[in-house]
Structures are given as structure tokens and as C-alpha cells.
């Protein structure tokens, strides 16, 4: 049913130019902030400047300002909501569970009041007139403070959010009998996901008790369910439309308290209300990723064979995380042995609530396991006096499928091949000579390797996506899908899949998504799933549609469906006469001239498939980077960057490389610059993007690619590729900096490796 007929694919595998570019390049993209509704009002949100305080709020003066329609505080709107849970519907525990802070604020940025006015300028004026009396309390801003302090979140009795310990059989013995145990630690810098488009919403209560929400969201269906559940609305009375999204990187999977406050305001005023996050708000209150402290110990035998690991992670969930903190630490523990033969393991995972901004998903939210593993693997190689590439070769798994210590089975991956190809591409052997020469001249070059198996299209417990493909009266094809795009290019890649299956051009296929009224529930964008899951749905639905097309064509061509082919927009029969009929003729017959259809045949030419993927589809990659580090200034420059990756069948190589590149540069930012740091009083260090350093074009090396292809066992043969770049980027750069500065015996235990941290971490004179 799903095997392509006739000729080999024509579009899948080609770097087809993106269909979405035309509108973006001419200023015709439509992001949430570009929509206006009749009678629309504008919201601004008052946020706490203190990390923890008891508050009393008086908004009376603000309410009197001309142009202000309302100022709502907790007392006005919190009763409209159920206690907040997560967008994923997990069981908890949750931090702050109210929409606006009631008697206590819990972090800098905690929303206190929402002002609604004729325009944003007046709404912000109103915020200035709100009188808040702050009675400061001791803030709990770090994991170590959380451990030694009573609960810092109202309504909770402990700061501990999650705890898991396990020791698999043989692990203790392996550590006791080891010839050598190597331990490394790293604390991540907190990442602000920083999509260029901030979060945004237009909430519009329409007639008949229905609510229309335009939302900058990765997954409008999950948002719809969450909004309905939180507001005690009937789910099919809520419509969520997510138009063009200006980047998301995980941040826009959840529905935050700010959105709910805006919805409440619109319901109370019965007017459309728009709230658009500004960037200081994004940095303080837009959610943070990677706020974790990691430690890994590896037990080794005398030959350098890994015997066991002990993985430890502590996660700082902040005050109002979008999902229960610690949930991902279990996944981290499960997969942290990665591509290496490590028979047994121990793990200790904890998560904490603190008076900091809540955690959110960020590109490869479990990336800490790869970071700490690859750092520790390099350290172990040094401890064994072995080259890090040789050490990896000795320990890498070569027999697949392979069962990880906690039982997860991995297959269809090629870590050794990507390692070999990356090392070859970067010229590893020659580099060592160059490095020695440079050192003699007082220049410190280093090479770093990062090896990773990445779970993609993560869908334990289901995680379906649906494609509905139809032939219009003109013979053109429209497909509605439950995927989404924040730059993922699905309007192009999904059209490629469907065009190949239907024997038409990419331009003959139009892809639609992002409106919960137009299609059943699905999983949207997230967890590197779209090529696999939405792609799988598109592939299978197209096959079903083709069967229907052949059946109808056979009727008109007076032949049997078997042996028909789809080519160039026509169904073509076999034999010397090769009778044919166009899709346009079939579309017209099926949709309009329905009396010409065979008796009993359903009118219309539509096929729909809801695809349930395997729980995991594994991709893998090896990155290699060359950096120059200056022990005088602490500055690091990335000179070369090689990615050898196996994402199975590439739907569109330019799209694949674009996803990798974006991730790698974020990984470099994670390693070298990006950080929202909190002091002990809970004050964030970055108020603007002058303080939170995002990589710019002059920081970005030209990325060199090697593509290895082990197809996945899914309909398209693809694997996810959205997150791997960000996951492997940071450890690759870290290892390269360590290698460059090896003569100075460096020790770094905190990211990012800012110049001051690098200078402080050099322990020898060199």
C-alpha cells in the first residue's frame, strides 16, 4: 500500500527550494503580532522585581488612567482557573499553580497584574501606576540553597520536586573492582531559548461561548486542551490557531501563565485582547532551559574498557516550570551511556523548586547527559593516557540492536561510522602536527569530539500525527497536517513526500496546519518528530489516496486499478495504448460531477491517516571542532566544525543541514556565551540582549557535513534532526577548549566558558 509506484522518488532527497520563502522574504509572513481584530485591546503585564516577597497590590490609580479598560490582579481572575497542571497533563508536582501571584511573589518576573488598554503604550503607562507593597523574604535561588531551606513556593511543603536513585546489578562491584574511576562535574548555564519572535497571543471570545485564540505555539492542539482544562471550558469550544511562528526551540510548547491571564482578561471584557512578550520579559519570565548540575563517574579496567557509570543530575526547576521538574532526568539516566558499551550503571536524579524563572523545554532538553558523558569520556581518555578518538573506538558499540543498561533497545544507528568519518573529514592526524607547531609558536589550538545517539520522534504512549490529503476540483492537492513549523520547512518537505507519492510537482501540493478546527488532535512540532511522524502520516495517507485515485481512474479508463501509474499529474494505464486521465478530470468528477462516479462510490477524493510512530527513532552524530583559545585573554574562536550525522533518509538535505547548523551554533552559544545567571538574592544577570550574549554571524564557523544514511524503520526512512546539533555542540566545544589549553592543566566546572571562567580555570603555567 505504501510502496512508491513506478519511478524512484523525484523530490525526496533533493534540496528543493523552500515554498515558504516567498512570503518571508517579502514581508508577508503572518506572525501573531501581525494580526489585528476589530475592537482589539492590548495587554501589558506587571512583574515582580524581587525574587521572593509578600505583596499587597493596589491598582486603583491605574484603573483611572484614560484609555485603560481594566487592570486585573489575582483577586479578579484566579478563580476562573483550575489549579495549573502541565500542558502534557503530567501528574506533578507543580510549583506556582495560580495564574497571577496572590500574596507572595516567587521569582523576578512573576506576573502580578495585567493591564488592558487601547494600546500597548497606555497599558505600560498603567503598570507604572500600580502600587505594590513588597515585604521581602529570603530568596532560594540555587540548588544548594533549596537543599538547606524550607519551601520557597507558596502551597508546597518542600523544595524537593523529584528524586530517583537506582543501582543496577553489578554496578557497585564494578566500581569496587575498577582499575581507575574518573569523575567529571559540570553546571550548565541557564539558557533563554530566545526565539526572535517572543511569545504572543490574541484571545478572542466570539459568539456562542466559544473562544478563538491565536497563539505563538508549537502545538496548538495541546494548547487547546490545556486552555479548556484550565478554564473549565468545553474543549471543542476552544479553537487555537498558530500562524507563522518566529522560532520556538521548545519554549513554545507550553501554555504559560501570561497567556492565561490574557485569556481571562478577554473573557471578562468580551473583547479581543493581544499580549506580546517583549525581550526583557522573555529573559526574565519566558522560561529557561539547561538549569542543571551534572556529574558522571566512569569505572574503567586497566585496558581502558568502561565497566560502569554513575550518573548524577540535579535540576533547578525554578518556581513555575511548564512541566514537573525532574521528569526528563529519568530519560537522561536511561540514555546517558550513549553509544558506548557500558554494561551497568547507577543513577541519582533530583529536581528542586527555587525562586527563579521556571524551567521550559529547550532544544534537546535532555542534552545534559551527552554533555557530561562526552566531557567525562575525554577526561577518562586523558587519565588512561589514551587519545580520545582511540578511547572512543575502544568503547563504542558496534553490534546493533544494542540494549542499554536500563533496557532501552537502540537500533539503526552508526556511531562508529560517524566517528570515523568526522575524524577523517577534520584531518585529525594532521591536526596533531599542526597543534604542536602552533604551540611552539605560542598559539593554543585544540580539537574536540562529541559522539551522541539522539532519541528522536519521542512518542512513548502514542504521540500520533495525522495527515489528510485531498484532490481538489482542479487536480491540485491540499494536505492538512497536525505538524507545525517554527522554521522547520514542513510546507516544503511534506509537499515533497506527497508529490512523490502522487506523481505531481511540489508546487501542485499545498500544505496547511496550525488550526485546531481544521484537523483532529496531533503532536505539533517538538522532539525532532516531524519528518518521522507527520512525514509518516503524509506518506501513508498519500498511498491511501493513490488507491482511491486508481479505483476511480480504472472506472473511467475501463480497466483494472492494478498496473495503473501516477505520472505528471495523470493516471496512466499500461500497454501500448497507455490510456490516461488527468488528476484534474478525476478531481472534477469526484468533487463536482459526482453523478459520473461508479454507483456506491463515495464522492470526494480524500484520504486521512493517523500515524502512531515507534516510541523512539534513534539518530546519531559525531561532531569534531577545532578551536583556538587564548590563555592570555580567555577568548575562544571556533576555527572549524565538522558534523557527521546519520538522520536516515534526508527528505531535503538543505533543510537537514539548516536544522543542524542552527542547533550547532546554539550549542556553541551554550558552551561559550549564553547564560542567565542568578545571584544569591535571585536577581537575574541579563535584563536585555546586551547582557545575554547570543551568537552572531561573525561567531559562526562554516559547518562541514558528512551524511551517513541508515534508514529508520518508519514510512519515510527518516529520523529526527532538529535537536542533535544543539545537543552535541556544547560538549564538542568544551572538549576542544580543554584540548587547546591542556598545557595549563585546566579545570572547568561551569558553563559557559566565558573569558573570566577560562582564566580562573587554568591551574598550571603552561
Amino acid at each position, binding site marked *: 500500500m505504501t510502496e512508491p509506484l513506478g519511478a524512484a522518488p523525484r523530490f525526496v532527497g533533493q534540496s528543493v527550494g523552500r515554498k515558504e520563502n516567498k512570503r518571508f522574504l517579502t514581508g508577508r509572513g503572518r506572525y501573531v503580532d501581525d494580526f489585528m481584530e476589530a475592537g482589539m485591546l492590548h495587554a501589558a503585564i506587571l512583574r515582580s522585581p524581587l525574587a521572593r516577597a509578600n505583596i499587597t497590590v493596589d491598582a486603583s490609580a491605574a484603573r483611572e488612567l484614560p484609555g485603560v479598560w481594566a487592570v486585573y490582579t489575582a483577586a479578579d481572575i484566579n478563580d476562573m482557573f483550575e489549579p495549573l497542571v502541565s500542558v502534557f497533563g503530567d501528574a506533578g508536582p507543580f510549583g506556582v499553580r495560580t495564574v497571577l501571584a496572590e500574596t507572595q511573589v516567587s521569582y523576578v518576573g512573576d506576573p502580578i497584574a495585567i493591564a488592558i488598554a487601547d494600546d500597548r503604550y497606555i497599558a505600560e503607562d498603567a503598570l507604572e501606576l500600580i502600587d505594590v507593597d513588597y515585604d521581602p523574604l529570603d530568596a532560594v535561588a540555587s540548588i544548594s540553597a533549596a537543599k538547606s531551606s524550607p519551601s520557597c513556593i507558596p502551597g508546597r511543603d518542600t523544595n524537593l520536586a523529584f528524586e530517583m536513585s537506582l543501582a543496577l546489578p553489578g554496578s557497585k562491584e564494578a566500581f569496587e573492582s575498577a582499575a581507575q574511576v574518573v569523575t567529571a562535574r559540570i553546571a550548565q548555564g541557564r539558557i533563554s531559548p530566545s526565539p526572535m519572535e517572543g511569545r504572543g497571543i490574541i484571545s478572542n471570545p466570539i459568539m456562542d461561548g466559544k473562544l478563538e485564540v491565536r497563539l505563538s505555539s508549537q502545538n496548538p492542539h495541546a494548547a487547546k486542551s490545556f486552555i479548556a482544562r484550565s478554564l473549565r471550558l468545553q474543549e471543542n469550544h476552544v479553537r487555537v490557531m498558530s500562524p507563522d511562528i518566529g522560532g520556538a526551540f521548545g519554549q513554545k510548547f507550553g501554555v504559560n501563565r501570561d497567556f492565561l491571564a490574557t485569556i481571562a482578561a478577554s473573557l471578562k471584557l468580551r473583547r479581543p485582547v493581544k499580549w506580546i512578550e517583549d525581550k526583557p520579559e522573555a529573559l526574565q519570565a519566558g522560561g529557561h532551559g539547561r538549569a542543571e548540575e551534572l556529574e558522571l563517574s566512569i569505572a574503567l579496567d586497566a585496558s581502558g574498557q568502561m565497566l560502569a557509570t554513575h550518573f548524577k543530575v540535579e535540576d533547578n526547576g525554578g518556581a513555575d516550570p511548564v512541566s514537573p521538574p525532574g521528569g526528563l532526568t529519568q530519560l537522561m539516566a536511561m540514555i546517558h551511556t550513549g553509544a558506548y558499551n557500558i554494561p551497568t550503571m547507577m543513577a541519582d536524579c533530583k529536581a528542586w523548586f527555587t525562586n527563579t524563572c521556571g524551567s521550559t523545554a529547550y532544544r534537546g532538553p535532555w542534552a545534559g547527559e551527552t554533555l557530561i558523558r562526552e566531557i567525562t569520556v575525554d577526561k577518562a581518555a586523558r587519565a588512561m593516557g589514551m587519545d580520545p578518538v582511540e578511547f572512543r573506538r575502544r568503547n563504542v558499540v558496534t553490534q546493533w540492536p544494542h540494549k542499554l543498561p536500563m533496557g532501552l533497545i537502540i537500533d539503526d544507528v552508526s556511531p562508529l561510522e560517524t566517528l570515523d568519518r568526522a575524524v577523517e573529514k577534520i584531518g585529525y592526524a594532521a591536526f596533531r602536527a599542526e597543534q604542536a607547531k602552533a604551540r611552539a609558536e605560542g598559539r593554543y589550538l585544540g580539537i574536540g569530539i562529541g559522539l551522541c545517539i539522539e532519541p528522536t520522534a519521542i512518542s512513548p504512549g502514542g504521540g500520533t500525527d495525522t495527515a489528510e490529503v485531498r484532490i481538489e476540483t482542479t487536480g491540485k492537492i491540499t494536505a492538512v497536517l497536525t505538524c507545525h513549523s517554527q522554521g522547520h520547512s514542513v510546507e516544503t518537505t511534506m509537499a515533497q513526500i506527497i508529490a512523490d507519492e502522487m506523481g505531481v510537482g511540489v508546487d501542485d501540493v499545498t500544505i496547511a496546519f496550525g488550526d485546531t478546527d481544521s484537523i483532529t488532535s496531533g503532536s505539533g512540532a517538538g522532539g525532532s518528530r516531524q519528518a518521522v511522524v507527520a512525514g509518516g502520516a503524509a506518506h501513508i495517507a498519500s498511498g491511501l489516496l493513490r488507491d482511491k485515485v486508481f479505483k476511480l481512474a480504472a472506472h473511467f479508463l475501463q480497466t483494472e486499478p492494478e498496473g495503473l501509474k501516477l505520472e505528471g499529474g495523470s493516471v496512466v494505464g499500461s500497454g501500448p495504448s497507455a490510456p490516461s486521465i488527468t488528476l484534474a478530470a478525476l478531481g472534477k468528477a469526484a468533487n463536482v460531477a459526482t453523478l459520473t462516479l461508479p454507483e456506491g462510490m463515495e464522492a470526494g477524493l480524500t484520504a486521512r491517516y493517523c500515524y502512531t510512530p515507534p516510541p523512539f527513532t534513534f539518530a546519531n552524530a559525531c561532531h569534531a571542532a577545532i578551536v583556538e583559545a587564548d590563555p592570555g585573554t580567555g577568548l575562544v574562536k571556533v576555527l572549524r566544525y565538522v558534523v557527521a550525522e546519520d538522520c536516515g533518509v534526508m527528505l531535503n538535505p538543505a533543510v537537514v543541514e539548516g536544522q543542524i547548523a542552527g542547533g550547532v551554533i546554539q550549542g556553541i552559544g551554550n558552551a561559550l556565551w549564553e547564560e542567565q545567571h542568578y545571584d544569591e538574592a535571585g536577581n537575574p544577570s541579563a535584563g536585555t540582549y546586551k547582557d545575554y550574549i*547570543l551568537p552572531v554571524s561573525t*561567531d559562526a564557523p562554516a559547518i562541514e557535513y558528512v551524511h551517513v544514511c541508515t534508514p529508520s524503520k518508519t514510512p519515510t526512512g527518516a529520523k529526527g534532526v532538529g535537536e542533535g546539533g544543539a545537543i552535541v555542540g556544547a560538549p564538542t566545544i568544551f572538549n576542544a577548549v580543554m584540548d587547546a589549553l591542556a598545557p595549563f592543566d585546566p579545570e572547568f566546572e561551569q558553563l559557559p566558558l566565558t573569558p573570566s571562567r577560562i582564566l580562573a580555570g587554568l591551574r598550571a603555567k603552561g
Partner: protein
Amino acid sequence: MSDHDINLTVNGRKVARRVPARRTLLDFLRADLGLTGTHAGCEHGVCGACTVMIDGVAMRSCLTFAVQMDGHAVTTVEGVAHEDGSFHPVQQALHDNHGLQCGFCTPGIVMSLLSMTEGEQKASRAEILDAMSGHICRCTGYQGLHKAIAQLTEANHD
């Protein structure tokens, strides 16, 4: 707060409006004129998403007040493509080289590239590369941008 009458040219058309003194050019273009192609990124001068051309020079509309535009000519991304809708070479170069993903930073990048590749004094490849560090793109890792710049400066490589 005072209101002011301004007369300016936007994408070749004459515009006459009354604006409050504090209204930014960014908000004026987007909300008053409906030219939503110019994007509000950081609104504090760092990201470049709001870049437009004022009298042929790339400027940040988030740091410019509408009232300052009296008597000036503003070009936005909506005014870049050819009459027949086909791409300007700058747009074509970004398209050809996969220089955009989500498209949010793109209008600003188009305007800066335009201001450096049009007119009498064309900037060198090195100058353009350097200047483009004033634009933040969170999606692409700048790979396509670098290639687009190479394509745009091929004729006069240096």
C-alpha cells in the same frame, strides 16, 4: 504628550499622518500603516529585526521615532521586490542559499544587505560580513547568510 504632523514617503508613496511624539517608527509602520513585514525583535537595538532604510541607509526602526521621519523616505521589506513580484537579487540570494528558516529576522537582514549592495558605493564582502554581525538569527546558524553574501559579492569579489 504632544502629537505631531508628519509627511514622509514610504516605499515610494506619500504618507501624511499625525503621531504622538513617543511613537516609534517600528510601531508606526506596523500598526498605523499595516506594514507588518518590519518585525519587533528586541526593541532595544540589538537584534536588527526592525531594520528599514531611511533615505537609503539601513536604520533600526525600534530606536527611531516616527516624528523624526518628517520629510524623509522610508523603505521597508514590502518595498524591495520588483514590480512584477519577482525577487530582488538580495532576496534571491537568501532564497537560493537557504538563508532563512522561521523568517522572523529575515526582513531586517534583507534591508541591511540591500543598503550595502545597492547604490554607487558597494560594500566589500568583508565589510558586509562584518556589518551583518548586527543581526541576530536564532535559527540558521548564519550558514545561508554567509553563502548569500558570497553570491551577492561574486561580481566584485575582493
